[in-house]
Every structure is written in structure tokens, then in C-alpha cells.
């Protein structure tokens, strides 16, 4: 059976499983809908958090980024896992102790202000939709390559599945589906990595294989990392293991820190800690979550290095006849493209003789030509076109998103393994999309509708509104997938920067500093958001030079966060302290949990 047949089986089977789980975990009340009845065991919540958090970006894009960036790619590994430590130590147990439904709920209660709530709601919705758009792209890539259906149909199938289990089961349905999705995605990630590690280095543990010697090819007996450094040097790329590749230390530092604080401030991850029984379970579930996430994150660097080796080894210097089948398969998607300069040999390098591209957006004179003309060009015309293309960094080399998906094919693994990776990619994208959609739903239906518009709404009505909003959100997310906004990759940086500059300081200070009142907190949030947003927008849309110490858009959230802390703390002594109710609230979070605190949480599950 071919790749397509196996993919049909795996995708069909996993989708059926998600629907069955959804049917068994349907809910009848808002408590079940928003916080899964607060009855999820710690380990299960850990798995669900892991699936929720590991998106198409972690599964599909991250290893590709590390593969291309080398050392500097570590910022994603450390940023996204290090953020969990902040979350576990600074936020999760306290937020669970407060016992709200959503993050805006906490912000408005702690700062007794609906303005603060509105700012938080807007941030939550913006971050969620930004993220969902990225997931939809992942779904589209997988469907178009492996099932050879139109991207739009792929997106619609994915959306229909999410629609069913999210509206039926709310948080409860999503949680248990995510537990299943975790196992699908981790299996799909580990099996190819183990197989390739064994094939390349003779050691089945990818983490050890990464530091071992090659047992095949012309680099036999040489360390894998050493070989990669050699290849990179020959082809004009930055060293794979030297500190920061082509990047500056300050920039790597800021990006890492922004991703850490951003992770800790992401609303769809925070709400997961509202679903467990008590504070102790919240602490344990943070541990389980990072352990489960670590299984993928410790393997990704190995996958990245293996992919780098195969990518160059299997295509560089090859003629049309010698090129492997995977190259042609992926060429159909436009994510990798070979434009020969006339010598009949493929050249992939970081210099002007590079002939490998991806069909990204063109700018300047190349845009006037357009892809059709460039691909149709010959002789001197082709050479001129190549020169133009090599001037554009973004379209040079293959699209980073194909690296994880194509590596099993590069290594000639069995068809069923390749199909499993497709199912894993879908699981990663769908689990994150559903978690985010629930945040949108709870922000609108709970924070805006119930808390601000109609506080007298009945339980049944609130549930209906919650379901309705999630339905609408799914449709909007689907539209993002079908008509992808060109800015997806840039706005992801935005989502993290915003989470780091807005939620993170507000929540941390809300818990650890009793003196901070409403006005300083709101001013701090606005200062953080305003600075971060204007810096990113300026850099991405108006090509303004990174004027702040050369920090790029991705890392500016760090400065935004500092600004938020400084503004809030500087204004605090000048403004009135919070009232007694708030002080009592903060005090309650600082006491160990007693049996009375958790008693009402007992719900059948």
C-alpha cells in the first residue's frame, strides 16, 4: 500500500477516535463547558496541556527552524519549555487557587475594573485568532501533500471535526480529545526520529544519536554535528553548533526571554490549570505537562540535525535523474523548487550560486517578473532571474515547514511511518486549534456576554451562547485557513510579544504585590502593548530598522514586558492601593489550600 492509502487509514482512524471521545464527554453545564467540571486528573491534564500547547508550529515548523538556524534555533527550545517553569512557579497554582473560569476573569477581579477586563479580553481574542490561523495552515499543508486534496477541502474537513467535538463537549470534550491527540502526535514524532537515528548512527536513542558518529555515507566515522559544521562551511552557511550562528547574543537572549514570558502568559495554556481538582493537582499537572512536552522538545534537535544532513546529502550536486522521489513529491506543493542555471546540477548553498527556493512572496523587480515567467525563463534570462531571487532571503532554500514532514521520505522509511507523521501533524494542529477556540468562546460568552452584558442569563442560555460563539469562531478560523492572511508568520511573533508584555506582568504583580492597584496595572498593560505593537508593526509593515539595540520583532516582547513592570511599579506609590476585598483575595491565594477550598469541586466525571 502507498503513502496515500496509509494516510487515509491513519487520518480516518484518528478522526473517528476524536468523534467517539467527543460523544462520550458531552456536557450539560457551563462548569463542564469552560473548566471540564474541574475534575481532570493531573497526569491527563498534563497530556492535554502538552497537546494544547504543542501546535503545528512545534510539530511541523520548529525542527525545520532549528535545522536551518543551528544554534540560534535553540531559542525556540529554551523559550517554549523555559516558559513552563515560569508558569508552574509563578502563575498556575495561584490562579487555580483563585478559581476563576478565564484569565480576564482574574484580571478584572484582582484589579476591580471592567476596563482591565476589556483589555484582557481583546488580548486573549487577538492572541487566539493569530494562533489559529497558523494551525489552519498546518492542516492545509498536510492535506494537500499527503491526501492530494485541495487545501480548502482539507481545512473544511478539519474544521468540521473541531466543530463537532468543541461544541458538544466544550472543555471536557476538548480535554479528553487532546489526551488522545497527544499520543497520536508523540508517536508520530518519535518513531521516525528513532528509525532515522538508528539508520544514521546505529544508536536508536535520537538524543544520543545526535552526538554520535555517522555509520553511513561519505562522512562515515565522523561525528554527525562535526559533519554538519563541515557541510555548512562548504556551502557558505553559518556553523551549526557555534554560538548563535549568524545572530547576535542580545537578540537571541531577548527572543528566548520573550518566548518564555509569552508562553507563561498564553491564555489557552493558563486555562488548562483551571480544569484540575485543586492546587496540588495544578502543580503536578505542570510537571506532567513539561515532561510530556519534553519528550518532543528533546527529540526535535535530533530530528533537525538528521534532516539537515539528509536535505543536503540527498539533493546537493544531483542531476534531474539522480534526485530522490521526495523532492518531486514536494515540488508539486511549491514549498521547494529547483531552478537550474544551465549546468544540469542542483546547487543548494548560501551564496549566489544557490538554485533551491520556495515559492514565497516576491518583492521588488522579481515581483514584476512573477513566478511563471521566472520558471519559464532560460539561458541568460534564467541567470538574471536567479540573481534577483538570491537577493531575497525569505525565498532562498526550501520552506522550513516541509522539513519534519519530508524527513521520513528523505530517509526512505516505510510508507506507514510517513503516513503516521501526517496524522501526527493534524493532531498537533487540531488540538491547539480547539483549545484556542475555547478561549475565544469563553472570552466572548463568559467575560463579555455574561459578566458585562447580561449577568442575569440562565445557565442554559449561557451554555447556548458559549456553543454558538465557538461555532462562529470555528467558521472564522476556517476562513483564515482558506484565505490565509499573508501576515501569519509575522503575527505569531506578535502573539508572544503581546502575551509577554500584557498578561504576564499583570498577573505576576497581581499575585506577588498587594499594593499594585487598578490604574498602574492598566497603564502598565497599555504601555507594554503599545510599545510592543508599534515596534512590531513598524518593523514588519514599514521596514523601520530595529532601532532598539538591534532587537528584532520576535524579541521585543522582552522590552515591552520590562516597560510594563517599570510603568506599573513606578505609578504604584502615587495611586491608591486596592480595597480590602482585593487584599483578602490575594491573601487567600497565599494560604495553603484546605479541604474546604476543594470540597465543592467534586463533580462526577
Amino acid at each position, binding site marked *: 500500500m502507498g503513502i496515500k492509502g496509509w494516510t487515509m487509514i491513519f487520518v480516518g482512524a484518528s478522526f473517528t477516535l476524536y468523534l467517539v471521545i467527543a460523544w462520550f464527554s458531552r456536557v450539560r453545564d457551563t462548569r463542564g463547558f469552560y473548566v471540564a467540571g474541574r475534575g481532570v486528573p493531573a497526569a491527563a491534564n498534563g497530556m492535554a496541556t502538552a497537546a494544547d500547547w504543542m501546535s503545528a508550529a512545534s510539530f511541523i515548523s520548529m525542527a525545520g527552524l532549528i535545522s536551518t538556524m543551528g544554534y540560534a534555533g535553540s531559542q525556540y527550545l529554551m523559550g517554549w519549555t523555559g516558559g513552563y*517553569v*515560569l508558569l508552574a*512557579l509563578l502563575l498556575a497554582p495561584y490562579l487555580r487557587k483563585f478559581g476563576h473560569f478565564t484569565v480576564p476573569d482574574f484580571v478584572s477581579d484582582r484589579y476591580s475594573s471592567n476596563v482591565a477586563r476589556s483589555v484582557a479580553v481583546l488580548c486573549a481574542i487577538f492572541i487566539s485568532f493569530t494562533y489559529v490561523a497558523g494551525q489552519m495552515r498546518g492542516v492545509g499543508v498536510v492535506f494537500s501533500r499527503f491526501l492530494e486534496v485541495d487545501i480548502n477541502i482539507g481545512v473544511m474537513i478539519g474544521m468540521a471535526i473541531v466543530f463537532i467535538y468543541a461544541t458538544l463537549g466544550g472543555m471536557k470534550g476538548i480535554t479528553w480529545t487532546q489526551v488522545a491527540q497527544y499520543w497520536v502526535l508523540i508517536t508520530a514524532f518519535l518513531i521516525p526520529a528513532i528509525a532515522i537515528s538508528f539508520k544514521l548512527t546505529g544508536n536508536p536513542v535520537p538524543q544520543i544519536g545526535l*552526538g554520535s558518529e555517522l555509520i553511513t555515507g561519505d562522512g562515515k566515522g565522523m*561525528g554527525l554535528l562535526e559533519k554538519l559544521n563541515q557541510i555548512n562551511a562548504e556551502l557558505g552557511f553559518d556553523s551549526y553548533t557555534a554560538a548563535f550562528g549568524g545572530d547576535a547574543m542580545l537578540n537571541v537572549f531577548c527572543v528566548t526571554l520573550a518566548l518564555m514570558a509569552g508562553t507563561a502568559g498564553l491564555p489557552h495554556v493558563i486555562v488548562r490549570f483551571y480544569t484540575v481538582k485543586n492546587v496540588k493537582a495544578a502543580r503536578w499537572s505542570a510537571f506532567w505537562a513539561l515532561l510530556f512536552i*519534553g519528550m518532543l522538545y*528533546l527529540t526535535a534537535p535530533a530530528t533537525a540535525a538528521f534532516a539537515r544532513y539528509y536535505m543536503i546529502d540527498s539533493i546537493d550536486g544531483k542531476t534531474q535523474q539522480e534526485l530522490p522521489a521526495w523532492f518531486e513529491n514536494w515540488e508539486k506543493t511549491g514549498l521547494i523548487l529547483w531552478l537550474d542555471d544551465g549546468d544540469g546540477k542542483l546547487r543548494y548553498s548560501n551564496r549566489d550560486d544557490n538554485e533551491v527556493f520556495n515559492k514565497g512572496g516576491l518583492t521588488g523587480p522579481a515581483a514584476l517578473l512573477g513566478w511563471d515567467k521566472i520558471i519559464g525563463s532560460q539561458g541568460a534570462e534564467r541567470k538574471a532571474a536567479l540573481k534577483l531571487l538570491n537577493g531575497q532571503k525569505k525565498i532562498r532554500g526550501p520552506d522550513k515547514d516541509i522539513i519534519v514532514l519530508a524527513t521520513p521520505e528523505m530517509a526512505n522509511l516505510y510508507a506507514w511511518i510517513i503516513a503516521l507523521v501526517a496524522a501526527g501533524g493534524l493532531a498537533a494542529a487540531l488540538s491547539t486549534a480547539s483549545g484556542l477556540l475555547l478561549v475565544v468562546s469563553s472570552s466572548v460568552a463568559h467575560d463579555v456576554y455574561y459578566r458585562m452584558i447580561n449577568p442575569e442569563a440562565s445557565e442554559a442560555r449561557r451554555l447556548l451562547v458559549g456553543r454558538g460563539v465557538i461555532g462562529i469562531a470555528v467558521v472564522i478560523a476556517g476562513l483564515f485557513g482558506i484565505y490565509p492572511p499573508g501576515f501569519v508568520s509575522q503575527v505569531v511573533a506578535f502573539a508572544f510579544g503581546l502575551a509577554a508584555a500584557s498578561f504576564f506582568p499583570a498577573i505576576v504583580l497581581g499575585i506577588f*504585590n498587594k*499594593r499594585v492597584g487598578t490604574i498602574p496595572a492598566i497603564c502598565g498593560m497599555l504601555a507594554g502593548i503599545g510599545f510592543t505593537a508599534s515596534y512590531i508593526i513598524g518593523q514588519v509593515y514599514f521596514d523601520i530598522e530595529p532601532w532598539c539595540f538591534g532587537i528584532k520583532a520576535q524579541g521585543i516582547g522582552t522590552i515591552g514586558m520590562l516597560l510594563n513592570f517599570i510603568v506599573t511599579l513606578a505609578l504604584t506609590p502615587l495611586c491608591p492601593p486596592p480595597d480590602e476585598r482585593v487584599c483578602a483575595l490575594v491573601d487567600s491565594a497565599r494560604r495553603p489550600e484546605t*479541604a474546604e477550598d476543594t470540597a465543592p469541586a467534586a463533580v462526577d466525571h
Partner: protein
Amino acid sequence: MQGYWRKNVTIMVVLLAIWAFVGLGCGVLFAKTLNQFSLGGFPLGFWFAQQGSIIVFIILILVYAILLNRLDNEYSGDAGKEELAAAAESAGGAEETEE
């Protein structure tokens, strides 16, 4: 309840210091120096950035969960109840800042 909160904050600060040292320190700030040494087939800085830091992060959360849950048990026992009652009387007492 001051005792409980103070111990809580101490544990947190120590663990976060390790977090910053390993993640931002070994992974980024001292990477160039550490890369001169090697561990197995890895340059040391590279290993910290792509493997070591993540392993340490997992251990930190594990230690935190164990220590804090133990602390909770300690203070929600009889000794803790008395202190809790005392704290309830003087609610909104002395202020503490952490940042």
C-alpha cells in the same frame, strides 16, 4: 501564615535562580565559553541549549511540586490551623513585595 508564604517565596526564588542560570546563562550568555568544552559528541554550550536546559527545567518543576505540596501538608495540619486562625484575624496585614 507569614511563615508559609515566606518559605514558599524562598523555594521559588532559589528555583528561578537555577532556571535563569541554566536557561539564559549556560544556554545563551556563557554559550561561547562553554562551547570550547565538549560532552560526548556535543560542544557543551550547544548541549545545554538544545538538551540540558530542557532536562533541568523538567527537574525544577518536579522539585517545586514535591516541596510545595509537602509545605502545604505541613501547614494545613494542626500547627497550620492555629496560624491560619491568627492570620484570619489580622487579614490584610504586613505587605510583602516580590518584584
